[in-house]
C-alpha cells in the first residue's frame, strides 16, 4: 500500500464533490491508467467523473504525464479535463 494526495479540477472536481483527498493505493496500482481504473471501480461519483477515461489529463508532482506513466514516488497526482485557459 502507498499513500498519495489526489487533486481534482474543473468538472472532475465537481463530479467527485471535493477538490482533494488522500488515498491508500493497493500495490497493483502502478500507472496513471491503473489509478483511473481503481478510482472508477469505487463507483458512484468516481464512475461519473472518469466515465470517459481517455479525455482525462494527469499531472504528477505538477508536471503533465501520459496515462502509461508509473506513479511510484508521486507526492501529488492531479486529474482534470483538457485545459481551456488563455
Amino acid at each position, binding site marked *: 500500500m502507498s499513500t498519495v494526495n489526489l*487533486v481534482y*479540477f*474543473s*468538472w472532475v472536481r465537481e463530479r467527485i464533490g471535493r477538490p482533494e483527498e488522500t488515498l491508500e493505493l493497493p500495490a497493483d496500482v502502478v500507472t496513471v491508467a491503473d489509478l483511473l481504473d481503481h478510482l472508477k471501480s469505487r463507483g458512484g461519483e468516481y464512475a461519473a467523473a472518469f466515465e470517459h477515461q481517455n479525455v482525462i489529463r494527469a*499531472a504528477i508532482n*505538477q*508536471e*503533465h504525464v501520459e496515462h502509461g506513466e508509473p506513479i511510484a514516488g508521486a507526492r501529488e497526482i*492531479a486529474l*482534470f*479535463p*483538457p*485545459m*481551456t*485557459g*488563455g
Partner: protein
Amino acid sequence: MAPAPVNIRVQRDDFDIAVEIAALCRDRTDIGAVVTFSGLCRDEAGALSALELEHYPGMAEAEIERICQDAVERFGLQAATAIHRFGGMEPGANIVLVIAAAPHRQAAFDGANFIMDFLKTSAPFWKKEHRTDGSAGDWISAKDADDDARDRWARG
C-alpha cells in the same frame, strides 16, 4: 550574455500592458520588436454574463514558465512576460497577457504566438461560463483547433 528575463504571474487582479512593456524594456536599447497578446472575455453576442477561471496553483506558474523558457530558447527572445488571471471576469475584461521582445519582428511575433498556443493547451486553467439567461454554467470544452495550432510548432 545574461539569460533572458522571464516574468511569470498568475493573479486575480487585472494587469496594465504599458507597465509590463515598460518593465521589460527598462534600461535596454537592444530590443527592436515587442509583440503583446491580450486575451479578453467576450460576451458571445450577449449570451455570456461572466467567465470563471479555475487554475492549479503552483503548476500553473511552473507550466507557463516552462513554455516561456522554451520560447526564449527557440526564438532567441530577449525577454518574455506572461500573466494569467484567475477568478471571475466580465465581458471586456482582460484574461491573459503575453509579451515577447526580440531584436527583429518575426521572432517576437512567433514567440508570442508560440507561448499562446501552448498556454491554451498546456497551462492548467479551466473556464466556466455563466450565461445571461440564468441557466447553469457549463465548462468550456477544449477545441481540436487549439491542439492543431499547438502541433504546427512540432519540429522535424
